[in-house]
């Protein structure tokens, strides 16, 4: 057909219908991994809706973010979206979900937001088994404010507030999620987009508190200070990552020497907060 080679003037992106195009360009730096993870998330949402399973309806998807680079995702997604205060995406999402159980609530935020200032909210939402999905972009530092140490920064890593190296140990996010009671726990890197998309699809379909950690480069603030060029970080993700589904959650510390374990670590069924609440409190 003659039209095959005709240039496509529209240049449409397959995720255009899920983006607030009037808010583009985004603020994310060149080399940042958030956009890739965000695209995986939108692809998974689209797939969920397309399959029609679980009665998924695009109008019922809600994205909630906190503050930080990843927190800006809520501002770009064309869904009902809430950009809340620092660390509070999860309690806000809890209120949304408990008030309207038809909503599919996704928390999309960063490691500083979810695990330092918001750490307490994370463990309690997991403990309660609130039926939401939390996606954490882990770039190992506070990117928005210029690269300060986070609760996820590796030991000895340099940041603007640990100029001689980080004296603290980081959280292992999957272990924390597992110990707190999450029903679904996975870890990927932004390089593993296909696995990540499948995983987000599974998490969205999962009944209960589902959690995915996604490692992401921050070349401008973290990589630069730790002598990691943007592509080198991606090479590390490729060469040092080991996919080990069902790995013991206690062995998931991020160690660039030994390797980073990726995969799905927890996928269990148990009643959600709302199911248990109804059983005890609603009189039929």
């Amino acid at each position, binding site marked *: 057909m003659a039209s095959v080679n005709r240039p496509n003037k529209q240049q449409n992106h397959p995720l255009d219908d899920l983006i607030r195009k009037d808010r583009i360009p985004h603020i994310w730096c060149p080399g940042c991994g958030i956009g890739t993870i965000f695209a995986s998330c939108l692809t998974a949402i689209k797939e969920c809706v397309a399959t029609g399973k679980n009665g998924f309806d695009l109008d019922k998807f809600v994205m909630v973010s906190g503050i930080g680079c990843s927190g800006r995702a809520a501002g770009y997604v*064309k869904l*009902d979206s809430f950009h809340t205060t620092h660390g*509070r995406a999860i*309690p806000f999402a809890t*209120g*949304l979900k*408990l*008030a309207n159980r038809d909503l599919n609530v996704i928390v999309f935020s960063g490691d500083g937001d979810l695990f330092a200032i918001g750490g307490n909210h994370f463990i309690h939402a997991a403990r309660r088994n609130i039926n939401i999905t939390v996606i954490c972009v882990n770039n190992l530092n506070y990117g928005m404010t210029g690269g300060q140490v986070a609760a996820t920064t590796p030991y000895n890593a340099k940041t603007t507030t640990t100029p001689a190296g980080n004296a603290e140990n980081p959280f292992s996010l999957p272990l924390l999620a597992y110990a707190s009671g999450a029903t679904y726990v996975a870890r990927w890197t932004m390089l593993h987009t296909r696995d990540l998309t499948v995983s987000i699809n599974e998490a969205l379909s999962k009944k209960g508190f589902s959690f995915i950690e996604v490692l992401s480069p921050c070349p401008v603030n973290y990589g630069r200070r730790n002598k990691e060029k943007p592509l080198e970080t991606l090479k590390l993700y490729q060469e040092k990552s080991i996919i080990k589904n069902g790995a013991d959650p206690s062995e998931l510390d991020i160690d660039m020497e030994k390797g980073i374990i990726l995969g799905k670590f927890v996928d269990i069924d148990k009643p959600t907060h709302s199911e248990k609440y109804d059983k005890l409190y609603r009189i039929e």
Partner: protein
Amino acid sequence: MTENTTESRVLTGEHFMTGDIACAEGALAAGCRFFGGYPITPATEIAEQISLRLPRVGGTFIQMEDEIAALTSVLGASWAGLKSMTATSGPGFSLMMEAIGLGLCTETPCVIVNVQRAGPSTGLPTQGAQADMMQARWGSHGDYEIIVLAPSSPQEIFYQTITAFNLSETFRLPVIIMTDEIVGHMSEKVIIPEAGKIETVNRLRPKGRKDRFKLFEPDPNGVALMPAAGDGYKIHVTGLTHDEKGYPVMTVEAQAEMMARLTGKIRNNIDRIIQTEELFLDDAEIVFISYGVSSRTCLEAMAMARSKGIRAGFLRLITIWPFPDDQIRALAKRVKALITVEINLGQIHREVKRCAEGKAPAYLVGHPGGTVIPPERVLAMAEEVL
């Protein structure tokens, strides 16, 4: 209470109940369907009562991990379309300041109750005070207007809780009810009318074309229509400075426009918001001004003064913020003195003094907190200044 087990939303009838319980019942009568709480003396009884009652009328109660989460969950539930509330006391109120700011900036209706105890810090957990009045006005960072009510009896707590919900739904903002340990824990007769006789207001939700809808475009009253998450409007809600569409705009002009919207809807509707009660002001030479539990001190002091031939009157503030500037200015023009009575070291007194400046002297009968002010002190002050 046997009423606790009832499944009816409105407990029509005559009761003997505490202010805290009356608050929970007022919330249910107003249509509250979500409560995010955290235990704290002397507000815990509100959460306890509502944890039992809410699920039986189709609502949801959750005790969150702290007061920040409690109020944040309330904001989330409000955006899901439910009338939502929380209740706390000073230390929890301090933690809620962050979410109050988010609620104001995102124009989220909800009700926050502060059953005040003496501070600062942990203070006197089981003893009353009225020392968070300025915190209620200015506690969250940035400029804003807010609505704050101060009921003075369990019966009034019941009604003002309904009013608080109605105001929050009308003007789309968090409304704060400031009670105190004394009114919160005292038991008095509370009459609850039939459900049909209680006026409730629900936020206006948009209809029509979803692609043209603007989330913060004010109606003639200065208030925007509010859809719920899941309605299909694809709204974006942010605590960043935003335009009428709800999109973040980091400019001086956008900040000025947003602030004009946030403050205008209150400042331009002051007559619809402010409630006061006037007693014996017609012939008054001296006027006591008070609110909450200290109103009771003033009623007694006024009776004592009148029996001694002092023409005392009483202005009871039910709405504290926005402050009734005009009413107090007018009053100050025709009386010899104003005496503010409150269990703090002069928070509302400062406002009264500002309004009375150059017209009448303003005095304070205050107290550092922990107990009520004896009416004798008010009488003595009246005798001294006249």
